[in-house]
């Protein structure tokens, strides 16, 4: 045990770890938002509800089918992503020619519907979800205690974020995607099915949100409103980072999680608001965001 600036190391690193965990979720969610925004030009207000659906999918798979965490990690994003594909086909594709505000209003409404339905059937209290056996316990690093599950969340989230970055920025499919973002008509002329790509992109973004939900289930309880407050913070993260770059979204997510953790140590009253304050400052100094292209 030692102290840093009068704060015991255990407390400091414990909060920094919590910050990194939150940062993992910010990064995954803002990444999904950025990917969807790039292709559809829509801010997906349903994202919070879809994150919640991911957690519920894991919970329901365990309750009703006895399917555990590891399978849920794969199944839940696919199932929830499939609902995203349905949403895009049923609703969002009709909005392509309209003002992007309508997409925002529609996804906001969808979020309300989903949250309301879940609240109806599962109430508003949290439902517990166990940490998988393999990741129980933790290890003592000398300066702090590291629970295994939390370490896993950070590693997995980093891996998924980097894989997504690689897929978008460095592969052939990713280059089609980026080209279609720039000029969909021209890309279609090359014989690439752009509408299908748009649909799948939305499904993928939604799947990322659901994956974050599954990962969050053992840490926070599973509850219908778990997404709605989180998503507002993620919006602030997106505004700070700017939606121009994938790597920007990832970095901003983790960095802001850390800042939030530090605030919890030194000035806990402000921990809820610090990200919003940073957003306001960034907007005053650099309106297009830290990584954004100037509009």
């Amino acid at each position, binding site marked *: 045990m030692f102290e840093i600036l009068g704060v015991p190391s255990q407390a400091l690193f414990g909060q920094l770890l919590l910050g990194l965990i939150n940062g993992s979720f910010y990064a995954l969610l803002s990444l999904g938002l950025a990917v969807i925004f790039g292709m559809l030009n829509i801010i997906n207000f349903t994202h919070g509800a879809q994150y919640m659906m991911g957690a519920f999918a894991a919970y329901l798979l365990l309750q009703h089918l006895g399917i555990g965490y590891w399978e849920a990690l794969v199944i839940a994003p696919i199932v929830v992503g499939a609902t995203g594909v349905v949403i895009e086909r049923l609703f969002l594709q009709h909005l392509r020619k309209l003002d992007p505000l309508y997409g925002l209003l529609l996804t906001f409404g969808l979020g309300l519907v989903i949250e309301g339905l879940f609240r109806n059937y599962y109430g508003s209290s949290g439902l517990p979800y166990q940490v998988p056996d393999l990741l129980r316990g933790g290890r003592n690093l000398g300066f702090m205690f590291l629970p295994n599950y939390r370490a896993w969340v950070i590693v997995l989230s980093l891996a998924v974020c980097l894989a997504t970055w690689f897929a978008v920025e460095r592969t052939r499919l990713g280059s089609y995607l980026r080209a279609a973002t720039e000029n969909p008509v021209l890309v279609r002329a090359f014989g690439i099915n752009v509408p299908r790509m748009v649909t799948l992109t939305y499904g993928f973004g939604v799947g990322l949100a659901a994956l974050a939900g599954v990962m969050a289930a053992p840490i926070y309880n599973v509850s219908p409103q778990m997404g709605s407050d989180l998503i507002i913070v993620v919006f602030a993260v997106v505004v700070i980072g700017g939606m121009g770059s994938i790597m920007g979204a990832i970095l901003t997510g983790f960095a802001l999680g850390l800042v939030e953790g530090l605030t919890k140590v030194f000035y806990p009253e402000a921990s*809820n608001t610090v990200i919003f304050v940073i957003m306001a400052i960034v907007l005053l100094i650099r309106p297009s965001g830290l990584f954004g292209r100037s509009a």
Partner: protein
Amino acid sequence: MESSIEPSVLAANRETSWSLAVAFAVMIAALAIGPFEVYPVFLMKALCFSLFACAFNLLIGYVGLISFGHALFFGWASYLTAYAAKVGSLSFPFWFGKVTWLVLSLPPQSPEVSILIGTLVAAILGYGTGVIAIRRQGIYFAMITLALSQMMYFFALQAKFTGGEDGIQGVPRGRLFGIFDLSDEKTMYVFVLVVFLAGFLLIYRIINSPFGEVLKAIRENEQRTISLGYRTERYKLLAFVLSATLAGLAGSLNSLVFQLASLTDVHWTMSGDVVLMTLLGGLGTVFGPVVGAFVVIAMQNYLAPFGQWVLVIQGAIFVVCVLAFRRGIVGELAQLLRVGL
């Protein structure tokens, strides 16, 4: 980017002013008969929210800016009015090495002063929020206002004077100008009606002034408006402050009607509600927000026993409005009758 929010209010021609006058007369008549038929508190609530929605419509309907944080102004004005009417004392934080509070002990204020305080605070908050938010357009604007209002929600949750989860309860309505006793439901109704009509007519005046014409030009094509020599930033900021101020007035009034200010008023669901009212009634129509507010408040009132289904239904209305009903109730009616409403 060109906006596709359909301008249902066309240039004020004779036909339009006729239809507006008739609609206004119908509205006045309905509001005069109202309290004999319906529970007055319901009507007062609907009027407060009508004013709130009209203020919101000033931004989305005429400038094309969608704010997802209007609960900030409504809720904080409601807190300040409730506090002034119930407690009255003012405290200012001062920094002498650490925060100390300078307390001016004042008696509880009269309703008119309390409302003025609440509205003024909303105007100041509107300026602060506006300066930050108008730096980005479109969906960013929506996200920024939502985030800032969430920040102020947490302040309200933590501040001492707001009473946290309890809110400020048992706010006295008091005597207006020392003459009219507002604890009488009929008197209160007339007061709310007068304030609503004043706000409504003010907004109508704003959107038909030269200033309003510039706002509409910004909505249609901001780049072109800039090239014509207008400083659009200033116009947008002023429109934002006006909208926030009037939303604050609605919140102040609401806290006196219910004698309560609580966290519900500053929560983001409240911002969502006012978006829904305006969308359902008709974006950019004069009477749309009023109709939308009455429908949504009635729905919340009568569907309350069904619990969370209200949320589901509200969400479904959003979806239906966006997909099939973008002009809203009043906008569709205006289209049908080929007049401006």
